[in-house]
């Protein structure tokens, strides 16, 4: 499911951006073609690199795929769900990040060092926000598992704790933008190395390795969307096909919305990104306070 749909998600965002830029834009299936092209290419390695550089794309992709086991998609229940899986989700992304940063440093290039350093910093703040949101959701749902938190109880929660969930959703949306390096935090489409975070870290990867990295990034975006959609569209018809359809519509909505945000905003100056992330944290924190106040 993730493998199948995540590039499509990316394609939709690009298409929306193109539409608002007054262009036709590439087909929504363009990311598939890009990946297919990369999978056929050979890799080029720098003399400086060690096995870490070759292992990193594999670990990054594998850990993102492992996370996908813990997130439900529409009628498809998450295959792995247990009390406490949220920590595993957060730390598997951490594992991916560790290898991404280390691989960037492996090239010995100052550009990639720069990207790595920024990634390490911004992720500290977004990690904080993610956990704050998790706490609020746990308090709302009284369950410590991701499937439980964004599961069946959500419609009731919207009635009782609407404001809390609204705050959670908005702060989580900023985290999605930051963690997946979208505008206003990072620009996935420029190649001006000095301003970038994610793109600059994978500057030296090529061929299959680059395909793994990009696929992993697309899947990560998809997974974050997959956490947000069930909270936003808490409709359970009980009919498998309908539920999945609703999920897909929700994902499309998010993709379009991300596209809108990207078209409507400029990239923030790097030293202002921290403010944006702190806003996300503040929103999450207010959500928590509202939850406590409502009892």
């Amino acid at each position, binding site marked *: 499911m993730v493998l199948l749909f995540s590039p499509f998600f990316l394609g939709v965002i690009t298409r929306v951006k193109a539409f608002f830029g007054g262009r036709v834009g590439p087909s929504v299936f363009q990311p598939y073609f890009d990946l297919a092209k990369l999978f056929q290419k050979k890799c080029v390695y720098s003399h400086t690199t060690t096995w870490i550089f070759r292992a990193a794309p594999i670990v990054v992709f594998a850990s993102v795929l492992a996370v996908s086991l813990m997130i439900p998609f529409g009628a498809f229940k998450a295959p792995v769900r247990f009390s406490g899986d949220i920590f595993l989700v957060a730390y598997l992304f951490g594992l991916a990040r560790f290898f991404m940063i280390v691989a960037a440093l492996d090239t010995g290039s100052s550009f990639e060092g720069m990207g790595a350093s920024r990634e390490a910093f911004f992720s500290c703040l977004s990690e904080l926000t993610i956990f704050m949101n998790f706490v609020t959701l746990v*308090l709302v749902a009284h369950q410590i598992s991701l499937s439980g938190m964004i599961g069946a109880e959500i419609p009731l929660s919207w009635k009782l704790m609407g404001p809390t969930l609204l705050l959670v959703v908005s702060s989580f949306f900023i985290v999605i933008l930051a963690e997946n390096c979208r505008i206003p935090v990072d620009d996935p489409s420029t190649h001006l190395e000095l301003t970038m975070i994610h793109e600059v870290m994978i500057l030296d990867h090529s061929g299959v390795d680059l395909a793994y990295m990009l696929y992993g990034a697309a899947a990560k975006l998809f997974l974050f969307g997959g956490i947000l959609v069930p909270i936003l569209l808490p409709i359970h018809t009980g009919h498998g096909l309908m539920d999945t359809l609703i999920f897909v519509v929700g994902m499309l909505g998010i993709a379009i919305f991300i596209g809108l945000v990207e078209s409507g905003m400029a990239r923030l100056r790097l030293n202002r990104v921290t403010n944006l992330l702190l806003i996300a944290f503040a929103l999450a924190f207010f959500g928590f306070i509202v939850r406590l106040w409502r009892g």
Partner: protein
Amino acid sequence: MEKIIQFPWHVPFGEFTLKLDPLSLIFLTAIIILTLCAGIYGVGYMRSYQGARSLKAHAFFFLLLAVAIGLVVTANNVILFLCAWELMSIATYFLIVFHDEKPSVRRAGFLYLIATHCGTFCLFLMFFLMARTAGSMDFTVMAHTTFSPALAGIIFFLAIIGSGVKAGFLPMHIWLPHAHPAAPSHVSAFLSGVTIKIGIYGICRVLWIMGIFPNWCGYVLLTIGIVSGVMGVLYALGQHEIKRLLAYHSIENIGIIALGLGVGLLGRSYHQPFIAALGFAGALLHVINHAIFKGLLFLGAGAVIQKMHTGEIDKLGGVAKIMPLTSTLFLVGALSICGLPLFNGFISEFMIYFGLFQGVLALPLQGVVFFVLGILSLALIGALALACFTKVYGIVFLGNPRSSIETKGTEEVSAWMMAPMFLLAGLCIWIGLMPAVMARLTFMGGNFLAHMEPSAFYLGKILNPLSIINGTAFVLLALIIMLVFVRRWLLGKEPMPTSETWSCGFTQLSSKLQYTSSSFARPIVQYFRNTLLFRRYGGEVSGEFPQKAQMSSHVHDASEDYLFRPVFTRLRNLSKRIDEKSIRYTQIYLIYIFVFLIFLLVWKMRG
């Protein structure tokens, strides 16, 4: 499962009673593992000093330290405990000052000696207060005594200060970043892995003996954990020397352990046995885990320093090509200390997180607020530790060498030094992939500290998620292997072309252009500059044709520079003034002692 051994011992109030209970068992596990590994490593490491200095004394003190620590964790009597504690402190001092020709090492050793004795003083006071109420010096008897809440509060404070100095809680940590880098690497590994844990043991023992503490004690412990954890890792980020950085990371991990103990204590105060057991068990598992991975990291750092002759991170680089095995083992340690899945750090952090989240659901309001703070700080610590260890690993082992190093191809350290590292790395992965054995053991310790009967229900509640994590870890491994095969299938067998790193068209690359550890950590350190007292010196370039400029940046330790230094300077000035004014002759000293003795006599007779 307790075992008591008694020997005759003719010391007033003292009894040579050793007791093995779950708590001592857990600490003994860590001690035995690390004594073995650091000892074997030391044989190889000290080879280079053969003939130059007396290694026998060093070996003697190392073994003495191991025995003393073993005694500390098994002693069941106050006098025996304190004797072993002093023996341990003194043996540690002699191990730290191995390189006593360097003034900085002598200074570090002396600082340690002062700090540890200040701590021991508090422990003396604490144990005598306890013994007075209990009417016995025996721990088991003490455990059956009830203490008044006020007394419990005082004892708690004395325990936190007395054991906290040893453990390195902020702000009593100042000796630690001096002493640990000063010692030879295997001693640093032992100090960081085991000796500072004895401070934690002291607190655990008091927690067990006292049974009931006022509620605020748990909050204090939790707060200490949060502050030590976050500040420890932030200070670590600002360090430029690898062993000093690792020493600050010990403070961070001690913070995590204290956080776990705080969770346990609060769970116990609010009568939530599951939370109590989880918090204590998580903390105890982290004690073992930290001993293993920090030992591994210090041993790895020692190997690098021995071969590269420097521990300055910004002068190293590309070590992975010279020492591939050491670098891989160091990577295992780095991944473990960041608490990432597949490795042991994750298991203990998972247990503490789990306890914290259970607490958020079950505790009254103020408990919820503190537990949420705990969750947030644990998340922040995790992310910062990741930043810190990607920095260490990326800058030291990867990239190009930053200063000219003469090497002939690969050059690993001797088998004596390699074997312990392999053992420790193996343990990291073993606990990470098959946590059940250690989780059971530490959960038993958690039950013991929580004063509850072992319950299969609670054990199942934690073992069940752990076994699923276990399964997911294997799925992850399977995915990795699958992707490796896909990659191999797509790329074919022929070797890939290699070329220079792409530098966006710039061709005059030199290794000096690489990111350094200072520049890597700068965004974070800069962001926290007011907390960390991050200062830059120089670095301004002026004029149309700028001349050479120099820039250095440094993170100051606030509690050292602004808390202890002024206080001790005042104290020294005061004593100097007394010294100059009145005391010139030895006879006057004797009179002072005599007067004090008379005072004591009168006081005793009055009572």
